[in-house]
């Protein structure tokens, strides 16, 4: 490995170790007896931190022009946010599920 090659790798190794640690934490949480919303919140929180690390450093978005970073981030956040209307109906399926026993 030349010195030029080594240059800048340190940052990536640090991110790599962070990612490993976070993933390990997720595995530990998976073994805990956590249910429902709590589980989702914890898993997604860690996954979002990982996303930030990967997108900013591994995909090098962090070193692009700020206007491009904004374009990608705002655009994606907005579109993904608008997809979340779907949940209200997911709960509706739980509340009004047609059971074999007809309602009285």
């Amino acid at each position, binding site marked *: 490995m*030349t010195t030029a090659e080594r240059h800048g790798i340190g940052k990536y190794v640090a991110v790599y170790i962070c990612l490993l640690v976070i993933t390990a934490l997720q595995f530990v949480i998976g073994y805990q007896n956590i249910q429902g919303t709590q589980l989702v919140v914890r898993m997604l929180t860690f996954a979002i931190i990982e996303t930030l690390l990967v997108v900013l450093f591994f995909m090098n978005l962090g070193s692009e022009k700020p206007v491009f970073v904004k374009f*990608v981030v705002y655009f994606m956040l907005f579109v993904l946010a608008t997809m979340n209307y779907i949940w209200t109906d997911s709960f509706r399926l739980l509340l009004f599920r047609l059971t074999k026993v007809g309602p009285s």
Partner: protein
Amino acid sequence: MSEAHVTMGAHTAAPMEAPPFAIPSKKLAMWLFVMADVMTFAACVAAYAFTRNATPDWPRPFHSVTAVAVMTVIMLTSGLTMLIALGAAKAGDKAGAFRWMMITAVAGIIFTLLHIRDWMGMIDQGVGLLHNPWGTAAFGASFYAITGFSLLHISIGTIALIIVAIRYQGGRYNADDIEIVSIFWQFVGLVWLFIVPVVYLMNQTPAAR
């Protein structure tokens, strides 16, 4: 065309406006593709999560996720080797870049094989699109749909890596192309980092108290 020519006459033309994002078109296109792909995966995950949330007796059957842990480490490591290859290519170390890309590709192949082995294990346990030993059929369908879509991306990414590496070796591609394939590779790795908690760990049998 010189700047002087542009300003000929009394009227000053706006100078050449730099592209606002200042990134080459190919790389921009890869980013746009990644954005579109995010939506594709988002739709798949939304379908899975919608169904799961609406199913009261969703099973949590996974006992051992050692294989998944190994696959995750491989995937993360391949991301790092990809970056080393990119660094080497940018520094002009052609042999090093090629070597590290090949290492990444090998990691991709191992990952794909492990993934297929994981699938075979699931199929052996009787998990199909329509049946599984643990309850609701939607479990198997969403499992195979999401992981299958990810596996497709990873295998395409692996093939792309090999093609780019060989063409880079042959001088047809340069460091910029490696950067583009690197963005895609990191993206499929990121998708895997979402699949692990969402598909595997959240369906993990909690340890008994």
